[in-house]
């Protein structure tokens, strides 16, 4: 009985498939819309290319869906290494577009290896988690797996593409969490991540948004005080560890745990700020808090996008009727701000529809990870869900002006073959896991 079911090619997640298909079609519609000027002239053929990519992407998705995902478990490490090599090649020989070396191309064709790297990363992490099994509950195993985050993050960060680089860490967190990593471990790194972000951005926040000297924040940006701060935090952690070892009191662990979070945050923030400063990125990351400090510069994108979304109202301005988009106030409409143009032209109703479709996809992904026949399949499903979710949160948060502009595309909607294919192959993996739930 199992055999007959698993052989049926129609045994496949129709709801997931059609959600993806619908999003892709909406995406093509609005890529077309973004290529129309205020005078009604179609100046961009991006939508044609997106149709071609969507066609190929659907084939890729179905191919992956009907391939046994366990094949990838065997080649995951090779795929990951190959992808890292591709990233190195991109850095060396890649094409510079918009000031970043992200593209690897032959003639007219180009791909962004950083997009596909996410899939290879999901597979290799899934393999690792599958391999260590329950061992993930141990801290060293959990931290060791986290080392996998470092190579792709660094290779992509120096392109520079900070948005994509920052995706790998949450992917690992989601997958490790699903694999059963201790909540305290996961919580520690999530809080540390938040601390890193906070401490990195606070000095810039002080400089541009607050525009006054705040001694509490200045401690973080001046080399003398920051050393003292870091040293004292580390000292407290060490003392707490010694206290734990000597007295065996549990609350020393709590102190060590609590204090090492900001310590890690401060240490990493110094490194990250030093890395980001030459790219003028800090201002962009902070300005969303108050776009009016630089309305024609770094704040422009946020202001225009929020205005586009907000002005859509309940019913929207109608397809091809958006003023923010067609008057070119909205930048990068077909990629980073595709949601803004949808929200402007189709209003809250349309945007709500987009939310529903993404929610359906994620809901199906969560169910599939539960249905999965083996742990590897579950982890892959978790990884794909985590990837789509992270992009959704960052991209739409950016469009609504509650997260900094990082340039992360929205799967299935944003223009771009690499992103679309990555999303579709990811869904193909989900479908493959679903397909083989009884096998």
């Amino acid at each position: 009985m199992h055999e007959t079911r698993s052989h049926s090619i129609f045994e496949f997640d129709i709801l997931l498939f059609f959600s993806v298909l619908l999003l892709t079609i909406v995406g093509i519609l609005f890529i077309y819309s973004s290529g129309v000027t205020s005078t009604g002239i179609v100046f961009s053929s991006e939508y044609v290319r997106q149709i071609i990519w969507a066609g190929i992407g659907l084939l890729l998705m179905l191919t992956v869906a009907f391939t046994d995902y366990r094949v990838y478990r065997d080649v995951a490490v090779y795929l990951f290494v190959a992808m890292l090599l591709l990233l190195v090649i991109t850095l060396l020989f890649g094409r510079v577009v918009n000031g970043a070396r992200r593209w690897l191309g032959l003639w007219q064709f180009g791909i962004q290896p950083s997009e596909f790297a996410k899939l290879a990363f999901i597979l290799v992490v899934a393999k690792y988690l599958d391999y260590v099994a329950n061992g993930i509950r141990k801290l060293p195993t959990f931290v060791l797996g986290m080392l996998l985050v470092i190579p792709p993050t660094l290779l992509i960060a120096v392109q520079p593409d900070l948005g994509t680089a920052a995706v790998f860490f949450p992917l690992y967190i989601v997958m490790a969490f699903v694999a059963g990593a201790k909540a305290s471990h996961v919580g520690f790194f999530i809080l540390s991540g938040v601390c890193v972000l906070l401490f990195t951005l606070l000095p810039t926040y002080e400089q541009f948004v607050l525009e006054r000297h705040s001694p509490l924040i200045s401690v973080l940006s001046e080399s003398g005080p920051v050393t003292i701060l870091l040293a004292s935090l580390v000292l407290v952690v060490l003392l707490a560890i010694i206290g734990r070892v000597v007295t065996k009191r549990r609350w020393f662990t709590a102190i060590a745990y609590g204090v090492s979070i900001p310590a890690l945050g401060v240490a990493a923030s110094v490194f990250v700020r030093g890395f980001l400063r030459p790219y003028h990125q800090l201002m962009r990351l902070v300005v969303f808090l108050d776009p009016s400090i630089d309305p024609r510069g770094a704040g422009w994108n946020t202001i225009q996008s929020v205005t586009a979304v907000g002005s859509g109202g309940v019913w929207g301005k109608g397809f091809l009727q958006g003023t923010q988009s067609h008057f070119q106030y909205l930048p990068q409409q077909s990629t980073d701000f595709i949601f803004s143009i949808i929200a402007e032209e189709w209003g809250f109703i349309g945007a709500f529809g987009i939310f529903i479709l993404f929610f359906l996809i994620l809901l199906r992904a969560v169910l599939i990870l539960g249905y999965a026949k083996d742990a590897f399949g579950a982890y892959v499903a978790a990884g794909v869900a985590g990837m789509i979710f992270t992009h959704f949160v960052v991209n739409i948060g950016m469009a609504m002006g509650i997260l900094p502009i990082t340039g992360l595309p929205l799967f299935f909607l944003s223009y771009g073959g690499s992103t679309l294919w990555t999303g579709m192959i990811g869904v193909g993996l989900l479908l493959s896991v679903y397909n083989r739930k009884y096998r």
Partner: protein
Amino acid sequence: MSNSHSYSKRASSGAQYSGQRSRGLVFGAVVTLFFLGYLGHLFSLQVIEGQFHATRALSLSRRGATLAAPRGEIFDRHADKPIAGNRTSFTIQLNPARVPNGQHAELFSDLAELLDVPVAQLNDRVPPSSYHIHQEIDVLTWAKMEKVTHLAEHIHEFPGVSWITTPVRTYPESETMAHLLGHVGRITSRELQVLYNEGYHSSSILGKSGIEQQYDQQLQGIDGRRIGIFDAHGRSVTERETEIVPPEPGDNLVLTVDRHIQQLAAEALGERLGSVVVLKPNTGEILAMVSYPSFDPNTLYGRQSNSALAQLQTDDRAPFLNRAVQSSYPPASTFKILLTAAALEEDLIGPDDIIYAHPVYRIGNRVVREWRPNGFGSLNITQALANSSNVFFATLGNEYIGTDLLLSYATEFGFGALTGIDLPGERAGVVPSREWKQNEFNTAWVQGDTVNISIGQGFLDVTPLQLANMVALLVNDGRLYRPHLLKEVRDGVDGTVLGRVEPEVIAEVGLSQDTLALVRGAMREVVRSGTASSVITTPSVAIAGKTGTAEVDAASENWHSWFVAYGPYDTDNPDEQVVVAVMVEAENKWEWWAPRAANVIFHGIFSDMSYEESRLDLQQRRLLW
């Protein structure tokens, strides 16, 4: 196994894993929370604050563009061709955020080559720190038409580059009319503070001197506005929804100036520090007003305006100074005309009364000498004026007329007061008084002061225009008209006359016909047989006038050279009479140039010739010294 496979069944059957299911549910819960949170924010943005954002979207794209009103043109009295007009210039702009990242350097070098400007200039205007700014930055003003045409043909190679048109003021007569017409420039923030309530705005072009400043309100017109929907590139999106308030062009001005006489006077003065005034005594119309050194107003509002302005501002010969109305000098012997009129009118001396002029006149420690070492001996007043006898007039002023009457005549003739000419920055000059001297020098008035004034020296300071007015008053039977430059105001569109300036009497000195005839006769004698007889040679008009040679300081070899005159001497048609006043400063090489220049000017006016033609004509008749 049934179709309805449940979570629990799967979990129990999978031996390899332990809890992804529950962790998956936690993840699903987190996802749901995020979705709900985002949905809430989206709802607040689009539904609750939707109206606010819709208004903002509208105001972002709805922009009012100023339609600059064309500045009124200025014509000379012939009203046939503008002496101040407008032409169109182009400003090339760049919106740096529209240039694809990383292509700024390439675009700048291409653009610099096309526009023929150094790349450094573009980098200067658009520094890397502005590459993300969505705003048009002027990279080249005063671009030529052909550059813009060329740019338009290749515009697809220059993303972010655009241009706007700006009207530019042109002055075809350039230096010749500079002081009179003045120049225009961008309004400064200080000027804007003062003029804001009169409709000026931060991009107004303002008259900075001369007629341009004096009649700026009439010339400005009223800027229009185009309220329309514009895209982020500043392109108008739809014509149909655009509301246009058309600009009202400024009024055209017709001046009293005759550009041929202006040209003649400018060339007659030549490259000598000084000034010339030519006016019509029976109306006060200024026919020419020249001051040297001059400047080219075309250069003051253009690509090199800053350097041109800096150069002119630091020139110690003060080229911006309109010496005809903004400089005052001792009138020297020309002032003897006034004494002649005063003494005769007050019957203090008869036309045939003789005063014996010694070679030297002493009063206190003041010594007045004749310019001819042996003196003149017995002179009547006509002979005294013709020969410009210092001793005669020192005696007449000090002993016959007296200080108070002399000063009161000077004041009545308009000295020491503004003439009220329609030009900004006129100087009043000085007519001293007993109180004035007490206040200025803390010493009492002495007879030496009266003697000094009697020969046009000392504390007396007059502008060339005031001196021309003195002659005009005598020509015009004691009536003085306000000297003026504006003749008519005409509509900027159809040219209908909106207003005419009527002659306005500003002074009336009671002088009898006998006095007037005698003074004019004496002035005629100056030219016929007196000091000016050798240089005033023109046969085309009978001239009456007076020379003046003002001492600057005792040590100097040079003197200010004056000549004031009118012609024709006697006429039935007062409308053809003109007054000419020429002032050549002592800084120039001594050539006794003032009467020589006046000679050519009169000859040119009355034979309808240019400067060169006049000179040639006088040369051929062997009348040019």
